[in-house]
């Protein structure tokens, strides 16, 4: 894939480039701020963009806003957003797009090469990725402790993996159960939480995210 990297720390930019090049991708541009990112996307029309939330000049969320703008203008470009801290607001803003092909990971996740490249592959395939740590945090902080308490341990695991954006087959593989079992768990979960059944993986991430954040 042709990838653009936007990250202000030079060492991390170099490391990302190295990993992705090793995997056979082509890094068409590696930039250090949001303005350069938009320019590079316009110029190179990549297949994928990896963006840090916090970049110069303000060091607040210009990376995220650039990513959302790119997503709107070019929905075919896969986007992976990195964040130093868990900011569920960013995750919600980013994921509230119509389709998949978008992801939100914590920066630490980059250090795990396998998970990082797996996330990119899933996004490129049109899936949705949400960092497991973000999901854990959301589950812990949710006000719906009573309702969440009615879930069985297995259903809880399925809910977490589903919120991370994984497909049924991926969940089945992860938990070493059959896909049919996963489907059954999911429909139980949705009825217990009072959510309507979702037609796409991405929609259900949004549904769960919305549920956990209220």
């Amino acid at each position: 894939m042709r990838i653009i990297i936007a990250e202000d720390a030079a060492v991390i930019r170099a490391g990302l480039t190295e990993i992705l090049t090793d995997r056979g991708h082509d890094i068409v541009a590696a930039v250090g701020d949001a303005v350069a990112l938009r320019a590079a996307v316009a110029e190179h029309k990549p297949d994928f963009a990896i963006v840090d939330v916090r970049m110069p000049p303000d060091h607040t969320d210009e990376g995220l806003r650039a990513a959302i703008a790119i997503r709107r203008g070019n929905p075919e470009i896969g986007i992976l957003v990195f964040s130093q801290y868990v900011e569920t607001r960013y995750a919600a803003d980013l994921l509230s797009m119509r389709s998949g092909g978008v992801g939100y990971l914590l920066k630490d996740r980059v250090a795990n090469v396998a998970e990082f490249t797996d996330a990119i592959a899933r996004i490129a395939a049109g899936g949705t990725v949400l960092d497991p740590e973000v999901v854990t945090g959301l589950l812990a902080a949710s006000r719906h402790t009573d309702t969440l308490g009615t879930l069985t341990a297995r259903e809880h695991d399925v809910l977490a993996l589903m919120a991370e954006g994984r497909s049924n087959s991926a969940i089945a593989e992860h938990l070493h159960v059959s896909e049919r079992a996963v489907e059954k768990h999911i429909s139980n979960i949705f009825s217990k939480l009072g959510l309507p059944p979702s037609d796409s993986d991405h929609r259900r991430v949004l549904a769960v995210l919305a549920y956990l954040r209220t």
Partner: protein
Amino acid sequence: MTLLRGAQQKFNVRVRELPQEKVAELAAAEGITISGMRPENAKLTWYVSRLGDPVAWRVRGYFGLKLPLVVTGLAGVVAGWLGGLFYLTYPAWWALGFYWLFGGFGIRSLGLSFALVPVGVALLYAGSWLTHNVTEGDRWLMRGLLGPRTSEERVRALRESRARAVDDSAARLRTIERDLHDGTQAQLVALAMKLGLAMEKLADAGSVDARPVDLVRVTQLVGDAHRGVLEAIGDLRTLARGIHPPVLDKGLTEALTVLAERSAVPVELVTDIQERPSDAIETIAYFSAAELLTNVAKHSGARHATLEAVHVPGLLRIRVTDDGTGGARPVASGGLRGLAERIRTVDGRLEIDSPHGGPTTVTVELPSHA
């Protein structure tokens, strides 16, 4: 409330704002028997407290002294201004027949009436002088009696100083956070990536494919990672030194010696520090000297500099002199400005004597204890 234990003495203790039960409790805790408690007459208490209030006395004093002042002022206005105006225009009045006002002096002719005109001028002059002095007197009274006392001024100055100190430390913590985040943390993440990649390549060797391990690549990755770690260690060392230089533990004299040796410009060191000032002062003094020597090396073009550090009881003075081009000024976001802020937080002083053409002398004075 200090009470003598077990004494058989009678005390009339005024305990305000405590309910009776609480007083009994406290007394019992001290081992004192209360023979009787009498609630004070509230109104009497109020009057008595007013009698003892220093602010109230100052206000009374002001109004008391203002009365004679006002009377004098009034006399001045009437006699001086009005009288003066009258005598100034006396001929007109005489002609109109009003010569008896303000004591006519028995003037019988118009010509003689002009003699009183200078009296009018004199009176006007006297009147304005009196009015001016009365107002000055009033202002002096107000400032003296009603103005803020030196202690209040001192409190205000202390509050400002404390606010500056709090802002200063908050700003420095933010700088440290940024340095750690952008520097050390980024380096460690990059390291983890390199090692992760290396591990993957090594793990490939045991996979089903059983491809040969790309040892060249793995060696390169591990080597890069190692170099990165050393760099991170160095950066952390520099950061820690910026927070508290370990060399200061040996004392300011020792630390300044190291600074002088490290300076690009030859520095002559003169120290007289018998007793060590407090840690915080030593740190500020050290960083001040470091900043000043850096400025000498970077901006002054000097060939020789002197660093003096003298500690007399209560005062630590650091002075850096150089024979450079001078013209040193504290720039808005420059090092000298930051230095001045830090010095001010401990009520110290920074003096810059740097005429264009040099030589430059910068003096930092700090109290022995913050």
